[in-house]
């Protein structure tokens, strides 16, 4: 049985971010203009600006699970449990074979491998008999999603969706697709990242000339600012409970938003450099699937990572699509929390989701001198903006190897 024409809705959200471990706190901090970026010690590199999560790790996990598992798994477990609580669902009381888990990841395994290799070199003279037997279950690519199923005893399908920094959106899209295919009745979908625990991620961006540097860590992530100089790497996670509308209504669930449309495409051009023409195509395709026009979009949640070239190119794509849409506001959550990699798209969507209720558009902070190449008409800078109401949010997430994802949410109307 399939449900191709079913509407898919969000009925719960669980998250951890550098600006709070629940939707309310994240939103409150975004509207208040507070940065969540701090200094974080990175092996071989000293202290660097980074976004760090401080959720209570043992709220939903035993200390043994915590020891055996990964940070990404722990983030996923926290988000999953919080998402179920938010949705008013007790996993033990529903058919756990009908719950699918789809976690977007930028990468996984770097942290665990790097840590093990460093220990071997630092303490054990490279003797592999000291290599942990936990290495393989920690580094298999399904790890964060699998740890969630182990923690909650879920027996439906689970896997991660590897989609570079487009992964958060991709996880949500996968969940929606599986609900429409009838592969599950409830999807836990989103993304997670532990990337700040691997110095190779920071070193790679630094070698690429794309790592943010600033004396004040709270000013390091500055998309669209003329003096932006790179990415602030962050950790985090955000999972949504997705359901078919008929199921959500049948159980009287709260409905936080509806998936209106989405699209994924590829640049097919470069390993690292983005391609604004393909980004524009991806945005237009998502709008077409949602049966919306650019003028229908109230908020564009940008991907912009604070790199000189990437921000400018996304703005070029946005100008092409939304140039004539005077009522469309544009913002950026990374300016507050940095780039949460596999969790970026899903956390940025969460940062904007409450707009359906409060009608506010959170700002883009740290734009002290707007880059003329990024001067989009609807860009909201410095302070949150009050609107007459938000009906549609379009969320961009793009990643290396030229992967683009666009997700459009609309306010739920019966």
């Amino acid at each position, binding site marked *: 049985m399939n449900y191709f024409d079913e509407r898919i809705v969000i009925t719960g959200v669980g998250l951890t971010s550098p600006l709070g471990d629940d939707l309310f706190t994240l939103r409150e901090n975004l509207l208040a203009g507070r940065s969540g970026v701090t200094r974080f010690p990175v092996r071989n590199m000293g202290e660097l600006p980074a976004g760090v999560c401080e959720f209570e790790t043992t709220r939903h996990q*035993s*200390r*043994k699970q915590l*020891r*055996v598992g990964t940070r990404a798994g722990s983030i996923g477990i926290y988000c999953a449990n919080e998402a179920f609580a938010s949705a008013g669902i007790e996993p033990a009381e529903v058919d756990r074979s009908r719950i699918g888990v789809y976690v977007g990841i930028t990468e996984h395994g770097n942290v665990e491998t790097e840590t093990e290799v460093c220990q071997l070199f630092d*303490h*054990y003279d490279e003797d592999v*008999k*000291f290599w*942990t*037997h*936990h290495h393989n279950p920690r580094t298999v690519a399904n790890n964060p999603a699998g740890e969630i199923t182990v923690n909650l005893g879920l027996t439906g399908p689970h896997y991660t969706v590897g989609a570079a920094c487009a992964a958060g959106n991709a996880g949500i899209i996968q969940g929606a697709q599986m609900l429409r295919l009838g592969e599950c009745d409830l999807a836990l979908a989103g993304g997670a990242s532990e990337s700040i625990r691997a110095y190779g991620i920071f070193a790679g961006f630094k070698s690429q000339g794309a790592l943010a540097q600033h004396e004040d860590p709270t000013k390091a992530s500055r998309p669209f600012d003329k003096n932006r100089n790179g990415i602030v790497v962050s950790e985090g996670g955000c999972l949504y409970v997705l359901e078919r509308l008929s199921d959500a209504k049948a159980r009287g669930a709260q409905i936080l938003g509806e998936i209106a449309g989405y699209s994924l495409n590829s640049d097919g051009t470069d390993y690292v450099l983005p391609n604004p023409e393909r980004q524009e195509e991806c945005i237009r395709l998502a709008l077409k699937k949602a049966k919306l026009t650019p003028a229908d979009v109230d908020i564009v949640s940008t991907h912009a990572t604070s790199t000189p070239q990437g921000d400018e190119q996304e703005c070029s794509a946005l100008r092409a699509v939304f140039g004539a849409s005077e009522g469309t506001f544009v913002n950026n959550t990374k300016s507050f929390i940095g780039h949460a990699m596999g969790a970026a798209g899903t956390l940025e969507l969460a940062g904007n989701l409450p707009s359906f209720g409060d009608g506010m558009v959170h700002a883009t902070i740290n734009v002290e001198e707007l880059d003329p190449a990024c001067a989009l008409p609807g860009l909201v800078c410095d302070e949150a903006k009050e609107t007459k109401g938000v009906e549609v949010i379009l969320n961009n997430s793009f990643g290396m190897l030229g992967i683009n994802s666009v997700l459009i949410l609309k306010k739920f109307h019966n």
Partner: protein
Amino acid sequence: MDKEKVKQIVLDIIAEIAPDEDLTDVKPEVRLRDQLDLDSMDFLDIVMELRKQHGIEVPEAEYRQLESLDSSAEYLFPKFEAKAVA
């Protein structure tokens, strides 16, 4: 070094491996798996920590010697003694 000290070493390792377990009343003559939530992966961790922390090797064929605190002390004590002499 005596056998009681060896038992304490094993208990200290178990405290790291199974941090949720209450170890205040572990019976030395009873199998560890019968009184604590330990699985085969945990025993691999115990073997690894003996190797890392104390340079003690436990061949796979002899893992069962670690089934209780008493049997662990009997088996490991000579190894600790040999290490001390070396």
